[in-house]
């Protein structure tokens, strides 16, 4: 199972890409854990997780073709 991940804002500095693909992550908790393992600095920053263009209320099951977006807060004005 392939999960597409879209990365926004300064999070792209950490993962060095605006898109990623992860295989074999069943839910968002597992996805975040895997991302933190690959990119330890992600664990230290706040961001919002959306699945298929919707914010999630808690751990969310991922399916084949799911798209996950990682959105950090922006402060600039």
């Amino acid at each position: 199972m392939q999960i597409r991940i879209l990365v926004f804002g300064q999070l792209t500095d950490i993962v060095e890409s605006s898109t990623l693909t992860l295989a074999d992550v069943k839910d968002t908790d597992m996805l975040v854990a895997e991302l933190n393992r690959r990119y330890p600095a992600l664990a230290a920053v706040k961001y919002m997780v959306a699945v298929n263009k919707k914010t999630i209320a808690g751990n969310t099951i991922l399916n084949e073709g799911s798209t996950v977006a990682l959105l950090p807060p922006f402060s600039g004005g």
Partner: protein
Amino acid sequence: MQEKNLYKRYGRQMILKGFGDAAQQKLLRARLLVIGAGGLGCPALQYLVAAGVGTIGIVDDDAVTLSNLHRQILYSVDDIGLAKAEVAALKLGRLNPEVTIIPYSIRLGPHNALDIIRQYDLVLDGTDNFASRYMINDACVLLGKPLIYGAVSQYEGQVAVFNVNDKSGHKVDYRDLFPEPPREGEVANCEQAGVLGVLPGIIGTMQAAEAIKLITGIGTPLLNRLVTYNVLTNEMYEISLTTTAAGNGGLPKDEAAFLSMNYSEACDAEETSVIEIGVEQFRAISRKPSAVIIDVREKGELPLLTGFEHRQIPMSVFRKSIGSIKNDTIILFCQHGIRSLYAAELVEEVFGTSKEVYSLKGGIIKWGDELGIHM
């Protein structure tokens, strides 16, 4: 104002299908507060004043600087050093003298935010820091005021409308996106990370469009939706928002709770167990076999250090390189000990207490002689 005169100025929008005299009258009766007259606020103000929003308050306690001018297009070189709210009010008054413009050259805080926001129908957030954004959000939730949110970072911007019920009676606020403020330094601001000048122009103008839609009732405002815009790819990504328990939990329950909130402190660094050390400890700890010394200065910063073995991981790439630090004892240094302290906090957040992390207090400016560095 007479309808005929209205038509002279606003005719091009009044003839629009679905707009007409009715929408124009709604604009004229509206009271809008723009907080922050910077990169977002300037373009938003220009279009909203031009469109004939009847009363507009402008809150900003800053003065114009030269570095503002690449994006804050209301101001000119002659305005440097002058209060933004006053300059903006003066210039906007020339654009449309029929709009009542009220400048507030003050810093908005919990002590004055409710009294000011209460006088307006809706609020446009054009601020540049998290402390203000959370405070404005909480005030708007308490007072039931629609909040038009916009923010930028480097080449990307966000826009959303908070605190307005959609057709199903559902509304969200900023805390539903991000329940707690990031710590100071966690997210780089425009000053640190940069911003393409035209980007806040685009995002601020989108905010102005949302304000006009909310006031007049035309179109479909961005209720419970967050749009992220990337100026480099010209792509928009939209997310549907829902309320969260964590978001509700962070809100002050009533006005008394709001008044006692410390928004700037909430953004300050949490308690840390990072130890700042002097040169004696630096020497002692660096002798441990498990120790690594890391210079977090950027490439090219002087003086170069040759007296002791160390790694170089510049701050600009530090976050993504944290995983490469395998040693259990880590000593960080930089020029003054400020960046290295923040770097040490990042290391601690990632590894917890499994590693000992130290920052050389005062940096090599203070300890250069003792470390055998010739400045």
